[in-house]
């Protein structure tokens, strides 16, 4: 059924007008601005009081804002690994815990060195390193004069610096690169189709990341579920991250497509409804058969979104999924 449909549309070589400019203006730039703002607030909060209790609300807000852009793996977040430095997850080898513990144990002076801190391992920076300090029993409860407080300030400042840089790089550079696809001096996107394909790939990759990683990792296998590896479980965010990522991806899909996409929308709504009513913030339920079944059902619904998008959005844009950074192991 797909074959004739896709073939027909692809033979009409010129793609439908892709919503590339709409994605940039209505989806990306507001979200990068929000992340820059939220991380700036986080930095200000840490400067005023770097202790855990004081910093947690700003951390939660910054993480919320991160979910608005974490799927934009093309461009500024990909360059120099900035996306990894902001949110290093999944962390299959437990690097965040080890790296933060080592920084604290050594009282590494790098935390007092604004320039030098950006050279630290990504496992010791960003939202996940900060989560350890604020929520892990091994660190939480540190005092204003403790090294951990200094480290929290350094991580917050580093996040604000990256938040500002990502917003600026999108606004001043990559937005134009996408919008001027096909222009003579644009070697990144040789035509509109390539720009649309890159955004569609971000959509498909983001959906897969939420299904395979955010849900799939804690699910593990039936015999060996792994609730302890859920994303940001220490700060009670696993399910919230799923919901926010779906909301962001829904917005991307809606802005990217010019034509109505009723089936994709409906699929998003079903998945979001299921996620919002799951009532299992840490996805800890994966350890029990009944809870696992509900998380699996959500995973299936997210995959249905991917299929709907593949059948509804991709042909209309004349694109397929490009290679993505999750193609490896």
């Amino acid at each position, binding site marked *: 059924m797909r074959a004739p449909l896709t073939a027909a549309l692809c033979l009409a070589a010129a793609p439908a007008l892709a919503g590339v400019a709409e994605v940039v203006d209505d989806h990306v730039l507001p979200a990068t601005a929000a992340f820059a703002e939220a991380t700036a607030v986080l930095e200000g909060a840490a400067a005023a009081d770097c202790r855990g209790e004081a910093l947690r609300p700003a951390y939660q807000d910054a993480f919320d804002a991160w979910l608005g852009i974490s799927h934009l793996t093309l461009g500024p977040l990909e360059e120099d690994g900035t996306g*990894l430095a902001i949110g290093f997850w999944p962390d299959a080898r437990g690097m965040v815990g080890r790296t933060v513990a080592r920084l604290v144990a050594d009282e590494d002076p790098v935390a007092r060195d604004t320039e030098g801190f950006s050279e630290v391992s990504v496992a010791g920076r960003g939202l996940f390193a900060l989560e350890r300090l604020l929520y892990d029993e091994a660190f939480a409860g540190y005092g204003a004069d403790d090294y951990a407080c200094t480290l929290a300030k350094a991580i917050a400042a580093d996040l604000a610096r990256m938040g500002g840089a990502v917003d600026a790089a999108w606004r001043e550079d990559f937005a134009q690169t996408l919008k001027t696809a096909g222009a003579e001096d644009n070697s990144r996107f040789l035509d509109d189709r390539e720009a649309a394909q890159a955004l569609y790939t971000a959509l498909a990759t983001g959906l897969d990341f939420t299904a395979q990683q955010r849900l799939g990792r804690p699910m593990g296998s039936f015999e060996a579920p792994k609730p302890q590896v859920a994303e940001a479980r220490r700060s009670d965010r696993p399910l919230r991250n799923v919901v926010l990522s779906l909301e962001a991806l829904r917005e991307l899909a809606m802005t990217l497509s010019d034509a109505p996409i009723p089936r994709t929308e409906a699929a998003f709504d079903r998945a979001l409804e299921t996620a919002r009513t799951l009532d299992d913030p840490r996805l800890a339920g994966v350890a029990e058969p009944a809870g696992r079944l509900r998380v699996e059902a959500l995973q*299936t619904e997210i995959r249905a979104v991917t299929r709907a998008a593949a059948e509804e959005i991709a042909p209309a844009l004349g694109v*397929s999924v*490009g290679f993505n950074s*999750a*193609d*490896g192991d």
Partner: protein
Amino acid sequence: MHLRPITAVGLIAMAASPALAQSKTEVLDTYANIAQAGYEDSLIKAQALQKAVDALVETPSAEALQAARQAWLEARVPYQQTEIYRFGNAIVDDWEGKVNAWPLDEGLIDYVDASYGGPTDANQLAALNVVANPSFSLGGSEVDASEITPDLLEGQLHEAGAVEANVATGYHAVEFLLWGQDLNGTDYGSGNRPWTDYSAGEDCTNGNCDRRGDYLQAATDLLVSDLEWMSGQWAEGGAARAAVLEDEDAGINAILTGMGSLSYGEQAGERMKLGVMLNDPEEEHDCFSDNTHNSHYYDGLGVRNVYLGEYLRVDGSVVTGPALADLVAAADPDVAAELRDRLDATMVELGQIKSAAEAGFSYDMMLARGNAEGEALIMGAVDALVDQTRAIERAVTALGVEQIAFEGSDSLDDPEAVFQ
């Protein structure tokens, strides 16, 4: 509406100009011939490694250990060039975890330094040390490991507890047994296991030398038999060759999928960029032997081999034939020229890492925090691989062979599976 599962075979191929029909099959023949030669070379070199390992265990000496290490290094040259076949070929992908899994929690296998730590959240068996323990409990049942055999490694230890880091077999398990842990951090130097770890009687260092030797031999024997099997899959009449030739558009797609997936997600992302971002020498692909520069170099060369249809065998002979490059050139000469330039540029970047490492600026030093030169070298290769991936995407478009998303995702291939 009937939702068709998206599988590699279900790919839609378009613009299949009849004039090219014949040469697509020829291109796939070349692709399969290179695979067969590459796995056969890997087998030949693994057999040489097996001899060297047997000699080490029978008559341990510094020279015998050195000879085994040299044989391992040589064995990696053809094998890394076959990694391209992992992506796009289910037969290879399902198998390769036994042969080349990485990274590993080496404490599963043998003694480790105190700094290694013990069991972790993610892996309760991270410090099991099978060499020292003839019996242990695994998932609630007692395992008899009094004899260390290929069956024990393959059947019970490998990925024990469903943890991927429990790598009990393959090149990197053998590498650990030959070199030991690299305790030099991001300073120069590889693992420094003493040859007396294989000595008999009172000369034995670090205990259980006989069991360590058994483990090394069992793992090497498995490597040989696994490579023998894969070499057969690509021979005339083999299943992997047949799968590629079954549907020529799907076959062409498999080549492109392999090139793009290895270049981008695997090599540029998982292996190179992540290592430099983490400043972690354990992220080196061949971390015990400090052979990572070669691992990356030959991965890159493998991509180029299949595109240009040319592979230099370990005996100096050349396997060559009609190639994907010819198809792309016929479809769009500009895209073909760009892709070739990108592949060459990548090899220059990977060659710079290799030459720097061979001159003493080793890969783990490049990963050190604040080492700007090392970071520039590695990120230069990452950028080249990313550029190369874009050119591969353009080749996909030029050939009209739409590529598959999320290759290897069970769930997408079989949406019903999740209900089972």
